[in-house]
């Protein structure tokens, strides 16, 4: 990392955790730190509970596992599943892989970007929807596939896409 980026660390990294977040992270660490290879299970538990891995939790994790902050940071950023910023209320994961491409995933992606006005890895301004790419959801026989908050939808067409987006915006 260049010195410039080190100085320009996002503000929420230096800001502390909210008290409830802190309590949650401490609880996760107490429960899981003893596992062999505990880091991924810990990051999953934090993200499942808080919706993201707050950068301010990194020093706590590092301390509990007796590894450096850079190690923890390196792992969080290596894995696409982990996010360091809050997601929207709903997360859409669009499959961009080949079986879905063969059934129109590229057009679906274009429509989704246009409808939401955002790109991949971005969140709509109203905080309703985060759009993520995914490379196969194991639903390749009934493509194209879209995962909405953990539930896969099969053979997604334009009408269903618009309907799913509308539902996400409302709720």
């Amino acid at each position, binding site marked *: 990392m260049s010195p410039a980026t080190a100085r320009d660390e996002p503000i929420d990294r230096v800001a502390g955790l909210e008290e409830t977040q802190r309590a949650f992270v401490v609880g996760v660490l107490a429960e899981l730190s003893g596992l062999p290879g505990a880091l991924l299970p810990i990051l999953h538990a934090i993200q499942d509970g808080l919706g993201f891995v707050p950068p301010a939790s990194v020093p706590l994790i590092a301390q509990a596992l007796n590894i450096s902050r850079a190690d923890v940071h390196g792992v969080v950023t290596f894995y696409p599943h982990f996010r360091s910023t809050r997601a929207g209320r709903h997360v859409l994961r669009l499959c961009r892989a080949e079986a879905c491409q063969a059934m129109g995933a590229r057009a679906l992606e274009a429509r989704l970007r246009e409808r939401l006005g955002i790109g991949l890895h971005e969140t709509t301004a109203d905080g309703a929807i985060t759009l993520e790419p995914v490379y196969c959801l194991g639903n390749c026989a009934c493509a194209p596939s879209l995962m909405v908050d953990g539930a*896969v939808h099969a053979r997604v067409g334009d009408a269903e896409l618009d309907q799913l987006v509308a539902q996400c915006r409302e709720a």
Partner: protein
Amino acid sequence: MRTATVYVPRDTTALACGAEAVARAIVAEAAARGFDVRVVRNGSRGLCWLEPLVEVATAQGRVGYGPVAAADVAGLFDAGFLHGAAHALALGAVEAIPYLASQQRLCFARNGVIDPLDLDDYAAHGGWKGLDAALALASADIVQAVLDSGLRGRGGAAFPAGIKWKTVLGTEAAQKYVVCNADEGDSGTFSDRMILEGDPFRLIEGMVIAGLATGATIGVVYLRSEYPLAFTLFREAITRARAAGWLGADIGGSGRAFDLDVRLGAGAYICGEETALLESLEGKRGQVRFKPPLPAIQGLFGQPTVINNVITFASVPDILVHGAAWYRDYGMGRSRGTLPIQLGGNIRRGGLVERAFGITLRELLYDYGGGSASGRPIRAVQVGGPLGAYLPEARFDTPLDYEAFAAIGAMLGHGGVVAFDDTVDMAGQARFAMEFCAIESCGKCTPCRIGSTRGVEVIDRIRASIDREKNIALLRSLSDTMLNGSLCALGGLTPYPVLSALDHFAEDFAARVARAVD
């Protein structure tokens, strides 16, 4: 009144097609009509185009209806489907459906048949018999059976499983591990998922046998985070198997120990590569390790480790029950046994086809698949995931066999077959192969990390008709560098989809006159 038994799959694809709403509608409708109905949540039969496939147990065996929508349920009750009555969605006896009846289901024999989390159902359908047989054998004899069966790893590299097991058995250590690769990162593949969701005790049984064969007492399944349902179901299967004594300090009352855990990946394709997977399990970034040392000698936490794919482990119990020769009798050449093939993409009847090696692509695409979903001609097929070659019609008579595929510059990989119709733009597919490599590269070697990004740019220039001949030559030389200079198969095989697209579909890289797709 007798209790009617109705099966509604709890499987990712079935649910994605609406199975949950169907199950709820059946329960509600039965209650409203005063019928006594037991709804079993089975796994999927793999007849994906018929999902949600609802089955009813009748005196004549199980009869099917599909694809069923929640709105069809009242009509099914009206017609008397609980007695297997005629209906527009009726499919007759499920096991007589030609797609299923013509398969050779070994690994997938129980999928869709049993309740995946019901230990009694598992035992009643032959479960634990392989483990019973293994418990009566010396470790070396289990390894010998796997060696003699000819079983090769189903994760992609097709390395003989028995040789790995033998190495681990022969390596002394205080702690050895059995690791299951359930990362199933190859697009177009879902057979691991179907075992985890539809017959999870089979995988547990295979891994316990691997433990007995090698002296390992701890097992770990590394499962991709894109499969939340498989995770939930498999974790529950572990809990139940442990409670019943099939895992833990005293497996099946034998005094032998083996325990199992499941860990989630986090969206990195490279973590399907076995050494990156081990790094990830150790809590690190998923970077590929240099080999040697082999994982069989220094694997997880530096200890001897058997690492195999889900289907490899899931194939083992039957080998112990029926014998190595029985298994070896399936297949052709050096490809022995069966391969669960996954048909996906632009195909009318997508699903899981388990057949002995030797079946041709053409049989799969047309006899099973029924041609494209769009009704247009199938123009290209990608076999073996994102690193697999694109094949044109002229190659459709190639038998599924590791060596036959290698001979045409292709690979079987994990058995995914993805069909494209004639609207496909093969230069676009080649570009995606490079893009995918750039996104997923672990960054350890330059040809992969930088070469893939260059590859995208070069293909963009070719598509924009900028110095076409020069850039095509550049793409070939770049591919050559990646092929020869990469540490692992991500960088090393990405040239396959790229060059096969270029070689077999050169017209798509030519000047962009709109190709006639009528």
